[in-house]
């Protein structure tokens, strides 16, 4: 086992993997810095490119774009007050205030260093927590997978903070689409209308490219092409002093824990983690009055948390095959394309590839630090690029990407249709992440339910037999009522000070 870890460390340093890490991080930062382009979109577009690569290089490249994009979002959040990705929204609060004060460099430096700390520490969680969780995977039978998917689906209610109704509607759309394809137990085609390409369900990656990339093209094309606000000129260096690093370190560590745990939980992603990290940073800070007016602790709190999500979110994806968010959902697709399945095999027969990937994840974070410190301000210039240039590029990449997965024109049509669907999802303020989650969890839940009932000859007792099931039921109930619980908690907390005064 240990020799595989060591092999991974050495193999990740091989020039091809280093190059893949460097290029993908740069591409990721670019995607993240461009407002409107998300991490999910970057990873979805990269998957077809990784086909020809060896499995470890391909996975490192995907992780590079993921981490780079989550970090890159902070650049435009700080310089343009427009978060490049939604998870950088909390960074914009204090980041832009610092820019207005002429401290853009310091803000960017804080974001870079905090992102690095969050990312690299979450990798340790990946190393330590994944193998035991993977061996636990064998204890997941049909009944346990059923409850796991139910748990994932309950999260949708929590994710869709704006309107639970719209979140549930999005989930229902995803579940409906997921019924297309072969019946998992009887082997009979459902809703395929004689189209043989639909026998395995709606082509997943093409659908995601449509939902996340193509829809953005439509949205951007609709709003009038306008020259974006110019990024503020940076006057100071992208660096922090030792004293400042010391000041943000406790915040970074706290946010790393928050981010990693949030990442492990299915459904909750970088955005939630960033806000939680930001709030906790304020709660513990000695300089509370700085928050909202340009606090480096605020930036660090948000950025360490959203980058810690990257490592955390890979844990359930790799071990149980349950992706926590839409980016890891796409990553899971890349894993399957490379002939690897989530579960204990990743740490036995595929151990070398897996540990190379883990080590590559660390390398990716190091490159992210270097790229951020030395080239961060150049990416800021790109963030204000004209939409007229961006639209045809994304459009082209979407078409090529969806075509090249199976070399079929059919997948391009799927991508275009889901692009239109995604456009209306944005218009009606529905939740694309909830759709994707339901698309993945639906078949797992259905197959689990039906297989369990076959094994038990129709007795429902099987669903309450194992400890794993009971734990999952408890977690589902908790997550289902968590919005109510949170509200109650915050209300009681808000009322307490009044009582004392």
């Amino acid at each position, binding site marked *: 086992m240990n020799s595989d870890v060591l092999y991974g460390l050495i193999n990740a340093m091989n020039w091809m993997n280093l190059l893949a890490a460097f290029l993908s991080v740069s591409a990721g930062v670019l995607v993240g810095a461009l407002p409107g382009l998300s991490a999910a979109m970057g990873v979805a577009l990269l998957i077809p490119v990784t086909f020809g690569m060896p499995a470890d290089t391909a996975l490192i490249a995907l992780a590079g774009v993921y981490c780079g994009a989550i970090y890159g979002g902070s650049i435009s959040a700080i310089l343009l007050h427009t978060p490049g990705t939604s998870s950088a929204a909390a960074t914009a609060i204090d980041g832009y205030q610092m820019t207005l004060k002429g401290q853009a460099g310091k803000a960017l430096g804080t974001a870079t260093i905090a992102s690095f700390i969050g990312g690299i520490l979450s990798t340790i969680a990946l190393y330590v927590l994944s193998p035991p969780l993977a061996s636990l*995977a*064998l*204890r*997941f*039978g*049909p009944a346990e997978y059923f409850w796991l998917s139910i748990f994932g689906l309950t999260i949708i209610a929590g994710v869709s903070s704006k309107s639970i109704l719209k979140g549930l509607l999005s989930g229902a759309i995803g579940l409906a689409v997921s019924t297309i394809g*072969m019946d*998992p*137990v*009887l*082997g*009979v*085609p459902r809703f395929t209308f004689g189209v*043989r*390409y639909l*026998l*395995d369900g709606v082509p997943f990656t093409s659908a995601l490219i449509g939902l996340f990339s193509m829809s953005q093209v439509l949205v951007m094309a609709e709003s009038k092409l306008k020259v974006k606000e110019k990024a503020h000129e940076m006057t100071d260096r992208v660096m922090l002093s030792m004293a400042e690093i010391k000041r943000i370190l406790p915040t970074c560590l706290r946010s790393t824990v928050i981010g990693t745990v949030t990442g492990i939980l299915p459904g909750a992603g970088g955005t939630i983690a960033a806000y939680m990290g930001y709030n906790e940073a304020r709660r513990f800070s000695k300089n509370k009055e700085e928050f909202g007016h340009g606090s480096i602790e605020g930036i660090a709190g948000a950025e360490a948390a959203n980058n810690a999500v990257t490592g955390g979110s890979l844990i359930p994806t790799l071990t149980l095959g349950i992706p926590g968010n839409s980016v890891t959902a796409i990553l899971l697709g890349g894993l*399957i*394309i*490379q*002939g*690897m*399945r989530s*579960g*204990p*095999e990743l740490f036995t027969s595929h151990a070398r590839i897996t540990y190379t990937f883990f080590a590559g994840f660390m390398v990716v974070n190091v490159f992210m630090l270097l790229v951020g410190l030395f080239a961060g301000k150049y990416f800021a210039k790109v963030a204000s690029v004209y939409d007229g240039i961006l639209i045809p590029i994304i459009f082209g990449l979407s078409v090529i990407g969806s075509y090249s997965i*199976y*070399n079929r024109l059919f997948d391009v049509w799927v991508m275009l249709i889901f692009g239109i669907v995604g456009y209306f999802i944005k218009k009606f303020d529905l939740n694309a992440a909830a759709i994707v989650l339901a698309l993945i969890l639906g078949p797992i839940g259905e*197959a689990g339910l039906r*297989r369990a009932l*076959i*094994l038990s*000859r129709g007795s429902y007792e099987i669903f309450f037999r194992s400890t794993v099931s009971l734990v999952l039921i408890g977690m589902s109930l908790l997550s289902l009522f968590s919005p109510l619980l949170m509200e109650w908690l915050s209300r009681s907390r808000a009322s307490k000070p009044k009582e004392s005064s």
Partner: protein
Amino acid sequence: MRKAFIWVLMIFMVISLAACGSNQEPAAGSAGETGESEGSALDGYPSKPVEVIVAYAAGGGTDVGARLLLSEAEKILGQPMVVLNIEGAGGEIGFTELAKADPDGYTIGFINLPTFVSLPMDRETQYAVEDVRPIVNHVFDPGVLVVRGDSPWETFEQFVDYVKENPGTVAISNNGAGASNHIGAAHLEYEAGIEVIHAPFDGTTNMLAALRGSHVDATVAKISEVADLVNAGELRLLASYTARRIEEFPEVPTLGEFGYEILFGSARALVAPAGVPDEIIDHLADVFHQAIVSDEHMAKAREANLPIMYMGPDELRYYMVNEAIYLEEIKPLIGM
């Protein structure tokens, strides 16, 4: 006028093609045996890479075996053989692409038996068994009955006795409803007069994970899928679906030894679209024969736990017809 021009062009093309053919060095030792002659379909074949459709995912069992053979065969063929993984619907999507491909000898593919023959019996498929013609058989992976290493059943008799006493309580996982392992398990159930629960999972990995995690009690699998786990002591073989005992596991009895004459396994063969001319089929059969019996290939196959069984075109056709007859007979009996 235009027609005449086209004719002239065609004559030029034929002449130039013939010239190409005679310029090309025939692949070592193949020209004489296949009876190549001027103007035959073989002239100049192959002048470009040959695409080989694999109807399953890259990195899976079928894919690994295919790439292993093709890397040897392309040396003999003199042109690259490019794998196209067209996966989906239990192989149907790839099989359909193969059946509908241009019959020019530049698209061939792997099929799995009995899956290729059984799919059109189970549902309306977009290919028919007659849409392809056999080239060679490469692998024959015999079926086995397997339980966990810590299972109370040490022998096949103990297993059958237990199931007879407790009908309908023992669950056997398979790799999909109506898939090969399901047929194997159901056939045993019928012959032995026992009653088990058939649990369909998606694919061999999940079918075995269910056994290893104690969610089912036994599995019908292919020997190559479980050999490593058996050698590691995690799983135990109870019986094999073969005529003779499996070479690598001589202590494992065959079902025939208990009076159940069930032969079952999965074969992987190369086929071409039905319209491909005889000369090309013969040439390819010869190339693959040489590749299969080569020492390099056999050594690599041993390393990969791949049980090789060569069959020529006629033998393979006979095998496919027999599989169809067997399935037609057995399916109604086992209630499928």
